[in-house]
């Protein structure tokens, strides 16, 4: 290899590191926020990482991605989609690698794979790596396939809310009253707007004090511009109005492996009200929000936001004397959700674990 190309390689690495650093800083500063933006930015960043990476064995790439993924995840551990995308990419790489293994060593490979995965319960990573190393080195260049896979993932991210919206007509009936409490969800907005092309219905929007009030008002504006009858209600009215509501439609920040979800603070209260009235709760989510994590400690998943939104900072007296907490999310347990509408179709909460297995590899759950 000539020295000049080695030089550009180092430059590339430096450049990549710059990208990662500025991604981390923007995550911390919340300049990139919201599951969709974070997922997209993560995927684009990983695309760069993969295209810059050089490896002789696929495990090296996986370790590289894992190292980067861990850094990305730690910038904002409560933004689960970032980790989801990293795991999706890892699963994709593993799949490509196994495909080539399969084609090379025929039927025996899948068998041996099964065995190694059984053994790997007791094996350390190092052993596994060395055992893999001994397997015939790959001849096929996987890079284009992996890059193509990530491109597909990015396309999926871009189109997920569209394909969810496609299912709206089946979910919303004529003259139905819908309640929503997640005005920050673009997915829900598109879902309702698409339905409005075919159906006539009413939407009630809980304004979810304190974080999303302005958003709720804008949300209502957009709906009414599209000819939907939209009403903003206070959070306190949710229970009393629930009797008239036909369906609760929620967006979400993250869906967990047990079928529970994290959504805008106030969502749990609404779901409990819906449950009391036996009103169905529909959650619209892209599959990229599905996380392989279990909510063992729900508190550690909930981001705590700007105190100033709850209590005005001007109130000098109160500021000194009161402890104010402003959680941004609620954890909604699976039993309060009736159905998830995803870009892959509708699923019941109890089926979420299966989707997790389809999308992620067990060995990547812990980054």
């Amino acid at each position, binding site marked *: 290899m000539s020295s000049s190309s080695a030089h550009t390689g180092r430059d590339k690495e*430096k*450049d990549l*590191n*710059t*990208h*990662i*650093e*500025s991604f981390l*800083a*923007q995550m*911390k*500063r*919340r*300049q*990139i*926020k*919201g*599951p*969709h*933006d974070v997922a*997209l*930015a993560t995927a*684009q960043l990983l695309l760069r990482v993969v295209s810059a990476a050089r490896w002789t064995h696929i495990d090296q790439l996986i370790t590289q991605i894992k190292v980067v993924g861990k850094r990305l995840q*730690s*910038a904002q*551990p409560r933004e689960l989609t970032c980790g989801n995308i990293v795991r999706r990419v890892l699963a994709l790489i593993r799949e490509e690698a196994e495909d080539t293994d399969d084609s090379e060593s025929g039927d025996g490979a899948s068998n041996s794979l099964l065995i190694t995965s059984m053994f790997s319960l007791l094996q350390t990573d190092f052993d596994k790596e060395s055992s893999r190393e001994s397997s015939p080195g790959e001849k096929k260049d996987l890079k284009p396939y992996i890059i193509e896979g990530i491109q597909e993932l990015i396309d999926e991210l871009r189109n997920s809310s569209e394909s969810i919206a496609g299912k709206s007509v089946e979910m919303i009936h004529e003259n139905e009253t819908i309640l929503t409490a997640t005005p*920050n*969800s*673009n997915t829900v*907005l598109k879902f309702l707007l698409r339905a409005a092309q075919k159906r006539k219905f009413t939407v009630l929007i809980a304004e979810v004090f304190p974080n999303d009030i302005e*958003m709720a008002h804008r949300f209502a504006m957009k709906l009414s511009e599209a000819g939907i009858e939209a009403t903003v209600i206070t959070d306190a009215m949710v229970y009393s109005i629930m009797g008239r509501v036909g369906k609760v439609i929620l967006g979400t920040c993250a869906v967990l492996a047990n079928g529970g979800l994290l959504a805008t603070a106030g969502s749990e209260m609404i779901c409990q009200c819906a449950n009391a009235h036996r009103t169905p709760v529909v959650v619209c989510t892209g599959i990229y929000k599905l996380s392989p994590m279990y909510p063992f400690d729900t*508190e*550690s998943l909930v981001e*705590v*936001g*700007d*105190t*100033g*939104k709850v209590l*005005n*900072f*001007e*109130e*000098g*007296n109160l*500021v*000194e004397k009161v*402890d*104010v*907490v*402003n959680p941004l999310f609620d954890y909604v347990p699976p039993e309060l959700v009736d159905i998830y509408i995803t870009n892959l179709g509708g699923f019941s909460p109890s089926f979420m674990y299966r989707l997790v297995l389809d999308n992620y590899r067990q060995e990547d759950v812990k980054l």
Partner: protein
Amino acid sequence: MGPKKGGQQAAGKRKGASSNAAGNDHDAEQDERLQAIVLSDSYQTRFRPLTLEKPRCLLSLCNTPLIEYTFEFLALAGVSEVIVVSCAHAEQIQEYIANSRWSSPSSPFTIETVLSPESMSVGDAMRDLDAKGLITSDFLLVSGDIVCNVPFDQVLAEHRQRRAKDKNAIMTMVLREASPLHRTRARAESAIFVLDEQTNQCLHYEEIKTRKHMKKISLEPEIFNKHTDLAIRNDFIDCHIDICSPDVPALFTENFDYNHIRKDFVHGILTSDLLGKTIFAHVVTDHYAARVRSLQTYDAVSKDVISRWTYPITPDSNLLADQTFQYQRGHIYKEDDVVLARSCRINSCTVIGARTVVDDGAVITGSVIGRRCKIGKNAKISGAYIWDDVTIGDNAVVDCAVIGDGAIIGESSHISPGAIISYNVKVGKGITVDGNKRLTRTEGDFGRDTDYEAVGTDGIGFVYEDESEVEEDDDYEEIVNSSGLIYNMASLNQSDASFTSSGEGTTARKARRRRISTASNNTAASEESDEESFMREAQASVERAMTEDHDIDIAALELGTLRMAKNAPFHEVRAATITALISRVSNLINSNTMKARQAVEHVLNRWAKLFRRQVFDLADQVDLLLLIQRDCTRRMQGSAILLHAINNLYDQDILEESAIMQWWYKEPQSKGDADMIKVGELVPRWLEWLTTAEEESEDDDDE
């Protein structure tokens, strides 16, 4: 790379989750690069003795250096170019920035440090910047100790709109609304803003001096004619975040008596009829903006950061790469590798750094604890700010105090609210440190030994006494009057707004004898005559001040103005002052009105204060002594005048013992010149007295 990214971030910031990927759309501001000037020096001494070793902006606030918060804010504001102006501890600041992520290619802005060692106030720094010609467009002026999360695009857009309409709208001040007794407002420094309700134009600015019990302010009647709706407000947190046009530094250069950005500049511009410039305010009603300008605000801002008013700039954002804070219910932030004993109790609003060990039965409430600290058994810590590597002994009680890096608090000792324990001080067993005490190990200007009374027989350190305390006793009342969140903490805020006091730290002083770097294109010949004329005028100015009995401040200002105008070094200022003062003394003696001693005291007691603004370090003091000596050779009774002058200046703390020693024993001039020796004939006896007095007092101490 840097500037481009800055623009992208500005475009992508503060958008709802609904918007698409950050940086897709192009705001107007992307076209215009935004410069920011960070004044890393505070030109105050309120954090002493902590700032004797470290500049204020590198002090840790919730385990992160203060300047990081400022840079975070600038990154959020979409700034593309940052210029850090440093004066005291400049090398530390430079080193910090060079090693920080802000100088890496991933930084959202380019960063540059500018040394301005001569500057003693914001005004000086601005004049220096103007002379260096670094400012090209409208810029953001902040100090290195602000904490702020105000989204800036709107403020900027409004400012630019106004500028486009009216070139004379030179400045926009960002003010955060707050109740008058808000904890985050600095108690000692508050001001009245008179604003036009409709346009937010600032019409009048008046600093409130609490000690004078100000009951009225006077407004120009014109204001009422021109503006229909006025708001007279005293409910702002003014953290000195200003958007300035390039006119601002130029105006500072034109008016070289402007030092303070608010008291002098804003007040001056608004009261001046000639300039016709206007200043606007941008009142922020949500989000957070504050400045750490005193210990009281240090306490308040720390609390605000912990209770997440500053979101997303909170400890768990882990601003520094190696931080690993995690948030827990009740505003508790813990890093990895914190060892907590089973029976210890961590109450709400607490920050604990990595590798800190908290032993059995210890109770920590509302405190910030740095890294690698050891908290002993049954220790009680509440409302305290404990920095890195501190050891707190068993059963010790620390209450609302600041404890610097590496300090050791002995077993069962008690640190009362408001105390400051500086770096590496060791407080012995069972000692009670009073709330008004500041303990330090850094000598500063005076070499001192351990004060065993204060720190115990097994301790190391002594009580720090603020030099500025002596010169500004009139502020004392203010201190007493300002009731704070923690009374004592607040009482430590020496209001030191006057520009006379030195910058933070001694390094600043050493370099200050260099000429102020304003461009001077004089030829050597004209400079010569400039010097002469300066001497003449300066002498005349001091003499006039004495005969007409001017205020000392006015005299000093006049001298300062002359110095700036003629671009004269401090040496000449000193020479002129000395000549004027000694000729006055000798006149008094020659006219037989007073004896030598009386005359010297009469003149120097009142006028020696002028030297405080002319003499900064040891070399200056020696220079001053030589000047006096030289001058005395020309006078009748010169040796007596010299002796009494030295004695008097020593008593007034203008001369230090070491300077006198150096002058007498080391300066070659004092040996070669016969006149000089003759005039110094009385000095050895005085020196003898000085050394014996010193020894005696040391003996006293030992007993």
